[in-house]
């Protein structure tokens, strides 16, 4: 079992209403699933808990059998470096680094930098001509391709994608989505895709729907 969630709860300090009210599900290695739901249903929060970006108030979030809720700050950082990769809607590239440095950044941070693999991914994503550019010099679609390359370069076991095509037009979104799914499949990683798009969700093997902090 790659990921196991049991009765996960979360309430933000500024709010009295829980965002997650006991979410449970499993993900096996290499599985791709879509997580849908209305705005405020807790999709992103759930993704952040799985990615070690935030901590749950209760329940179990176990990755490869290790409960993330028991990890300290450094442990969660190590998890983010190598085991889990997150693709954000707004790309969140590092503006000070070139495209090449952005792509290799996380892999080198995790100590799993494979130049041949990175090069192959660059070619697959059509980024060969942009390696010396800075993120601000790229279009949205190109930036998201860089973000995908960066996330996959360390070969994470689980990829978390938070509305990765939400800022792209439909044609570009389709291309980027297809590329992402192909590459994730090739690396053998699992994928959890948060999306509002029924069309994209339908293209993945499994779908979970969150409503008011509960799976339905």
């Amino acid at each position, binding site marked *: 079992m790659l990921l196991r969630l049991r009765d996960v709860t979360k309430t933000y300090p500024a709010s009295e209403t829980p965002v997650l009210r006991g979410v449970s599900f499993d993900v096996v290695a290499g599985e791709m699933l879509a997580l849908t739901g209305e705005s405020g249903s807790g999709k992103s929060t759930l993704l952040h808990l799985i990615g070690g970006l935030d901590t749950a108030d209760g329940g179990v979030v176990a990755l490869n059998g290790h409960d993330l809720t028991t990890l300290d*700050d*450094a442990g969660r950082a190590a998890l983010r470096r190598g085991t889990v990769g997150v693709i954000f809607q707004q790309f969140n590239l590092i503006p000070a680094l070139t495209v090449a440095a952005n792509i290799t950044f996380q892999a*080198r941070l995790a100590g799993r930098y494979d130049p041949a693999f990175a090069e192959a991914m660059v070619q697959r994503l059509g980024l060969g001509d942009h390696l010396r550019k800075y993120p601000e010099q790229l279009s949205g679609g190109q930036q998201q391709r860089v973000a995908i390359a960066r996330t996959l370069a360390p070969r994470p076991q689980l990829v978390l994608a938070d509305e990765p095509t939400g800022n792209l037009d439909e044609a570009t979104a389709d291309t980027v989505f297809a590329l992402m799914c192909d590459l994730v499949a090739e690396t053998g990683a699992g994928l959890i895709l948060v999306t509002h798009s029924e069309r994209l969700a339908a293209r993945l093997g499994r779908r979970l729907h969150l409503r008011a902090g509960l799976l339905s």
Partner: protein
Amino acid sequence: MTAAILSALLGHWRRNPLQLFTLLAGLALGTALWSGVQAINAEARASYDAAAATLGEGSLMQITAPQGARIPQATYIALRRAGWNVSPVVEGDLATVRLIGLEPLTAPKGIGPGLMAKGGDLGAFVLGGGQIFGRAETLARLPATGAAQVIAADTAPNTAITDIGVAQRLLGRAGLIDRLLVAPEQPLNRKPLTEIAPDLVIEGPQQGSAVARLTDSFHLNLTAFGLLSFVVGLFIVHGAIGLAFEQRRVMVRTLRALGVPLRQLIALMVGELAAMALIAGMVGVALGYGVAAALLPDVAATLRGLYGADVSGQLAIRPAVWLSGLLVAMGGTAVAAAGALWSLAQMPLLASAQSQAWGAARQGRGLAVASVGLLAIAAAIAVWGQGLLAGFAMLGALLIGGALALPTLLRLVLRLGQAYARGPVAQWFWADTQAQVPGLALALMALLLAMAANVGVSTMVSSFRLTFTGFLDQRLASELYVRATDAAQAQAITGMVQDRVDAVLPILTLDFTVAGLPAQLYGARDHATYRDNWRFLRAVPGVWDALAQGEGVLVNEQLYRRADLDLGAEVVVAPGVSLPVLGIYGDYGNPVGQVIVTATLFHRLYPDVVALRFGLRLDRSGVAALTARLRDGLGLGDSALIDQAAIKALSLAVFDRTFVVTAALNILTLAVAGFAILMSLLTLAAMRLPQLAPVWALGLTRRRLAVLDLLRAVLLAALTGALALPLGLALAWALLAVVNVAAFGWRLPMYLFPLDYLRLGGLALLAAALAALWPAWRLARLPPAQLLGVFRHER
């Protein structure tokens, strides 16, 4: 409508209290140092003016004897009988108090603190034990005088005034007068001075007091420091205003779209800034009085020790200081805000109101070009410029040019660091540091200026100290200096000491003019004392032998520069006698030109002049005994006997006080720069979250990010320090070789003090680290939700 607009404008400050605090504190701190220095200067000048008013130095002609000799009372009586409307003055030190004796019946109007009008009684003043006037603290220091004490608050500091008879009695100078004040109205039929007292000279009224002129350089340095500190403060203000205005662009566009006229909007913003400047200015002046109160005792000690100038140790609230502080605060705010206001006024209504990146990179090229231009101007002035104004223009161009060059130079160094960096975190660190430069540029420029000013002023003061103490060793080579009041006493002195010393070196002197400039001619005996100790700036080979043969003269640097008397140039030393310049010597602190010939030649040219001053060479252990013998045997007072070692010790003590003042100003300026860094980092902390959040999300802990941020601040401070060193040394060179020469006619050699620079560098790093500590601590404890908020906000 105005109230509604104001409410919207002020809402920005309510939402950004840190920005408001930065603006007010930057302005207040800058104004504080400026006002502090101004308060000190004003106090000193008031003291000089009070001293000048006591003796009418600024407005009256005076009759004196040459070489500081005293005038017999009989000569005074002869002058009065010949119709001269003159009044005698006796002056000397009594238990560290400057005691002045006046004759109230003949003193010109307006002399003294209006003694008779302020509690004085003419009868009591001149009869019996007499009266003695002065400030309460001065009178308290006097020993028992037998005279009734009268407190007069407007008397000059450390000065007591009494009847001339009382002063003569207390100072042990019966029948002797120091100088005669010449009343403005004189009878037309009086006999000429040369007929009654041919040995006396009449001096014209001085423009301002002599002390004020002598201390000008000291006050100039203080003012320069105050101004630099203010400029450092202005960088903070400029940064805060720039950021606030950038952030208010959206609001301005909205208000204009809602129908608010641009002119009204700008006027209200100007009013808003003026109100802030006024508040910050008032706080700044009040703080400035605190700075002045802390520094004044050391400044007063320095001025008294270096120049013999008495400065009151108490501060008075002076409207001029308040006005100057408030004007400087308002003016500085106007300068700091001009660009932002102009940019807002030019913003088209439909333009993108997106906040432009603060200190955007696009400005980088403009800054670099401006910097190169200013540095080129500074270099051109250094080569071709002349005069004090050119010197200050060069200083300004150098400092501003250096500051503007900082961002470009930092980016170059950081790019180099990135090129050599290995590992993703190191690469990101260097790249991200580059990205932070625009946001931190103003604070770093402030630090650069503060450090450059520190290096420059410290180098100047330390070079001055080293040169001056070396100079004292040369010029005060004799163990004891003795001054006689007349030829008879001079003869008695030489007679008494002849067998008790190794050598008697008479110092012959008279006032004359060289190339139309006032100068002094000295006659010096050919002796090893001079040959062994004196150092020349420039000299012909065999200078001492040629001088001994009467083949030429030595001139001091001031005369060489003012009269363009290079080696070989002819100097007229007596009617029909001109001799070439053999050597040029440094003569630091002397405002007057000097020419030295051998004593033999001096006697031949001016046979009537007798030496009244002598340098005595003897074993140091015998100085005390000889001093006592001269005091007891010939009745010489303390002022007639100068112990070389005591003078040197005093000079060093005075310099140490000067260093206390300089060090305090250095630390205050650095503290202002440190504050600038702190405020910039705190402001940037919120703006940096979008840059830090992705790196955190990719696996760097908040703690590590905080450590890197701390390192970044220290690295930037270190690089700024490295650039500040050459700039500071250039500043020191400009002060020593250009400004000093233009202002005072002599050039100080420049020495380097690497240990001082290292210490300063350490202080700057400490200031930067302390400034970065709080923002870094906050980052280390930042809740993940806030970092995640970055990803949410961007939806």
